[in-house]
């Protein structure tokens, strides 16, 4: 297994390099000048030229590429054009916020999704099954943007139960640790819910289908025939096999952990990677775009690798040599 993991990690290096090189050229060939956003009416036209020189944008493309490769090999991701700071510094501030939000959204997604899936599968054809299925479709169809705004208006503005946006109250840094964490928790509830609820509806549907397939298998009938309790039959025998497709979902969801969620971050003013990436694209902030691509690329590869490893953990038939 360890050799398999090392081989996969090694093979990811050229893949990532190719991805970043592709991104490097594609964003530079795309129309739009990174400097144009900073030019206003009373600005010296020479400013644009000076700024292009200062940012190295007037260098020939091959030279820019060589400089970029040198930077990458020495671990430097460059300086953001729009935020005027080291890209690593910006990522270090943003990644934890995104991880916090998306981790809890994923936990919410899988716990609620699996619970719903198991419940509806076991109560197939019942009123509960129908209600949950229809509700799931309804929730899944709702645009995050709309749901987020409705919750802000309903829960935050009219019911006044939770804060509307941000990660903390303005003076949270003066609070004692527990109150600080409580404040953070309150600010997380709405964005985590919006981010996780649609995925939970989808996970629930997958889980239901997967479990229904498993509980009709012969070995489940055998387990029941042996007189095992229903909890043991479902919990130990059925659920383990039914979870295999869900693990694929988990692997695919992992990039989202760092890729962030643009819409939810925008609506709830959550300072995460999704919003950062979109802002970087609109500002033609080349170093920041490449860094965000790197983070997403690493997470896609890591997510797939993790899914493969979890297959082996969950399904004893799978062995990696």
């Amino acid at each position: 297994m360890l050799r398999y993991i090392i081989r996969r990690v090694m093979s990811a290096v050229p893949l990532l390099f190719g991805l970043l090189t592709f991104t490097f050229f594609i964003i530079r060939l795309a129309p739009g000048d990174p400097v144009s956003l900073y030019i206003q009416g009373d600005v010296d036209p020479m400013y644009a030229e000076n700024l292009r020189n200062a940012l190295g944008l007037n260098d020939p493309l091959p030279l820019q590429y060589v400089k970029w490769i040198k930077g990458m090999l020495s671990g430097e991701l460059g300086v953001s054009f729009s935020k005027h700071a080291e890209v690593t510094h910006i990522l270090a501030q943003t990644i934890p916020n995104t991880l916090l939000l998306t981790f809890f959204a994923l936990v919410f997604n899988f716990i609620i999704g699996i619970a719903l899936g198991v419940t509806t599968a076991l109560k197939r054809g019942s009123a509960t099954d129908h209600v949950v299925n229809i509700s799931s479709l309804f929730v899944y169809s709702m645009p995050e943007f709309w749901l987020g705004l409705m919750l802000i208006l309903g829960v935050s503005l009219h019911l006044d139960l939770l804060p509307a946006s941000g990660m903390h109250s303005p003076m949270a840094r003066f609070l004692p640790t527990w109150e600080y964490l409580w404040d953070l928790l309150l600010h997380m509830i709405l964005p985590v819910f919006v981010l996780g609820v649609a995925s939970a509806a989808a996970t629930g549907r997958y889980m239901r289908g997967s479990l229904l397939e498993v509980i009709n298998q012969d070995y489940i009938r055998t387990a029941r025939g042996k007189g095992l309790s229903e909890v043991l039959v479902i919990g130990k025998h059925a659920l383990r096999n039914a979870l295999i497709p869900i693990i694929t979902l988990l692997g695919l969801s992992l990039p989202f952990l760092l890729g962030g969620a643009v819409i939810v971050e925008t609506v709830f003013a959550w300072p995460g990677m999704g919003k950062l990436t979109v802002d970087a694209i609109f500002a033609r902030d080349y170093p920041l775009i490449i860094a965000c691509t790197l983070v997403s690329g690493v997470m896609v590869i890591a997510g797939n690798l993790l899914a493969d490893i979890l297959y082996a953990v969950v399904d004893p038939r799978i062995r990696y040599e």
Partner: protein
Amino acid sequence: MSPRILFVAVLCCGLFVSCGSKSGEKDPMSQAAVVALSGDADNFNPVVSNSSTSSDIQGNIYPMMFDVSFDMREGKLKYGKGLVNSWEHANDGKDVILHLRTDVRWQDGMLVTPEDIKFSFSLYGDPEVASPRRSYLESMIFTDGKFDVNKSIEIVDDSTMVFHFAKQYPLQLFHINLSPIPEHVYRNADRKTLRSNPANERPVGAGPFKLEEWVRQQQITLSRNPKCTLPYPAKLENVIFRVISEPTTRLTELKKGTVDVMRPVYPDDVKDIQENNPQIKLLTLPPRSYEYIGWMNIDTEEYHNSGKVVAHPLFGDRRVRQALTYAINRKELMEHELGPYGELAVTDFSPIFRWAIKHDLIPYPYDPEKARQLLRSAGWSDSNGDGILDQGAKDFEFTLHYNIGNKRREYVATVVQKELKSIGIKVNLQSVEPVVLYQNIEDKRYDAFIAGFSVGLAIDPAGRWGEISNPFNTVAFANRRIQELLKLGLHVATERDAGPFWKEAQAILHQEQPCTFLYWIKDIVGVNRRLKNTNINVLGVTDHMWDWTIGDPNSYMTY
């Protein structure tokens, strides 16, 4: 313990903790104001910062040479005492002698000296630094095309310095009023990478506030600078700027009372706020931004290929441009989009400059018949009966570009398409991503486009209507008399002396219609009434922020 009991216990603990904090302790929000921003700052070095957020905040962190205000009655800037105690002009107005305060200290205890000011101007003028404010120095002394800081700025003694200009002109004090930065912090900084210098995130200022904390994309916290010796110390303990890019969320925070100041409030939301949120007062700012439809005056293909200036085949004729303005119902567009928060634009001279406005110019009315007449006189007729005007084989057809996602401009484009169709002009609509749109407009790649422009605090139309090559002369308008008036208007002793030149320039612009000026936009600012002494005006939301106070200390909404 069952999970249900555990959950209830956690919630109760949390509630207990959060409620307990309020007893006996002073709520930090009782002396703090919260301002909602749509975008974050880029850095806090006034030499290199680009964003409007940075500009708004820096004026409160760094010492300003003058305490500038805008007199709305007169329509001009007024200069009060700041770092400069008094000033006088000499050498036929080409020199400005400044008498500085000697008791102003940077946050780290060092004195603010004339050397700091001279050093800062050397950075503002250095092409390697690429300061966006370098144009402020263009009337100072240059040697071999480079800003000569030693010839431009003379230090007489610890409290006196002289700024030498190449000419006398009305904006001298405005151009001196750049924030100085501490030399001892930046002396050894690499000028090429000044933009990303880590010191820019920890500004050492001397203004009424200091930067307490900056969490990117989240919040900027300023606290009162107790060591400030400038004549305008801060009254509030803290001002917090929160970055909330989504307008609905920003508005919700304002309505909840968790944000005290928000800009802009959209006209559609005004009625609801007035009816349901008596704690919010709405202020209307005098207009400094307008929107226009640009008609390219020259044949851009010829211009880009050979550099020759040839009239545009469609819009090169003044009568055609006039006809287009007559054919568009600008008043209805403005009323639909802005209601009472718009003002029909006659030219691009902002109504805030009352003394310079030519009040007898009458806006072009909506008159499609007049438009048809003008087009006929310019040689456009529907010779083949297909409903589209033509000149022989050439149809009157063009593409109108506007930025994607801008609802107001999308609406304008649709209405313009419909209205021009009624007089026989075929308009194709093309929405473009903003970065690409602005680049192509500045490069003069479009025949027609919808755009906006914000004017400065002093009249300086040289960029807009000067050389064709200037990127801000977006429609490549070239008029000899306008060029002469620009030179005359920018070389007078006082602003008022330029009045006649600017009025003549407006008459020419009105006649020539280099573009169709649509409307001025009056921004609406929402302010919670708990915030007192706000002087929100044309200079911005944070102007004179140091005077803000809180009316009711217990009025901030907390959880």
